[in-house]
């Protein structure tokens, strides 16, 4: 289907009336630049929001990964069969790209010795002081942004993307024990920042 731009295209209604994602995909494969613009306009906010929630505050990385998602989508568009929404298909690509980034960061980071610092982590309990106007979710986000990148990413991967320590270990080439230790230390740092916030 790709590479036949001179085939006369069927009339394409404005995007607001397009319910058939497959038709939009076909228009892209015909290299219709107007359909390409509609595609970018329709789906960039959704993909950007997903990537931003995982990788903020790395704004440049967020933009780079969103671009990688769209280029990968174009290169694989012939595989899109229309069996599900185009949005879900794109978010699937986005998830893979974000996980590639997690893997690169955690795979290349000098992870802590899995036996180091065991005695330092005494409790995982979060102090129950008043949050004031702030919600638990807002404070969690604020504190996560204070953490080093490897701690932040391992927590996102575990809790936001719901990957087990074993899955993360398999993806990064680390041992499951090393990932569990990294998770424990990341949670400990998180708890310490939370406690300090409560005291200040």
């Amino acid at each position, binding site marked *: 289907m790709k590479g036949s731009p001179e085939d006369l295209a069927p009339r394409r209604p404005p995007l607001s009336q397009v319910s058939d994602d497959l038709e939009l995909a076909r*228009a892209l494969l015909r290299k219709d630049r107007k359909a390409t613009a509609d595609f970018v306009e329709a789906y960039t*906010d959704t993909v950007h929001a997903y990537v931003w929630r995982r990788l903020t505050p790395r704004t440049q990385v967020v933009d780079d990964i969103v*671009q990688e998602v769209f280029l990968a989508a*174009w290169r694989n568009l012939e595989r899109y069969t229309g069996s599900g929404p185009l949005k879900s298909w794109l978010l699937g690509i986005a998830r893979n790209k974000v996980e590639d980034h997690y893997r690169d960061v955690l795979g290349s980071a000098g992870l802590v010795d899995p036996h180091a610092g065991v005695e330092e982590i005494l409790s995982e309990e979060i102090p129950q002081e008043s949050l004031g106007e702030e919600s638990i*979710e807002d404070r969690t986000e604020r504190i996560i942004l204070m953490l080093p990148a490897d701690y932040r990413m391992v927590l996102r991967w575990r809790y936001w993307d719901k990957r087990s320590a074993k899955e993360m270990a398999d993806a990064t080439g680390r041992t499951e024990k090393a990932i569990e230790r990294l998770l424990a230390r990341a949670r400990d740092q998180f708890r310490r920042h939370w406690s300090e916030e409560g005291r200040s």
Partner: protein
Amino acid sequence: MKSSDVLQRAAAAERPAPRASSTLKSRLFSALCDEQASSGPLMSLAHCKSAGGKLCVFEELVAISPIGEGLKSRNPCNVCHARLLGEHVENAPIYWPGCPYVQFQNR
């Protein structure tokens, strides 16, 4: 409450995210068009129009010019200042209808 419980709770909440910048959308569009052009000509402007696409004033001029189809299938946005502004300036001062870089402005 354990830290893992707090993290699970925060992860379950759908945090509002900012819209993508218009400069990002502009760069995405340019990159996609370049990628499409790398494997052969783009759909001609006349065919884009017959498929329901709205051409900008410059594309209309290219479409009616007495030049070969090969030239008409190139991406005229590559030499347009709207592309330059769209890719580098948020809320760029470009307004004419039919221009994708205008379409991407968050206003």
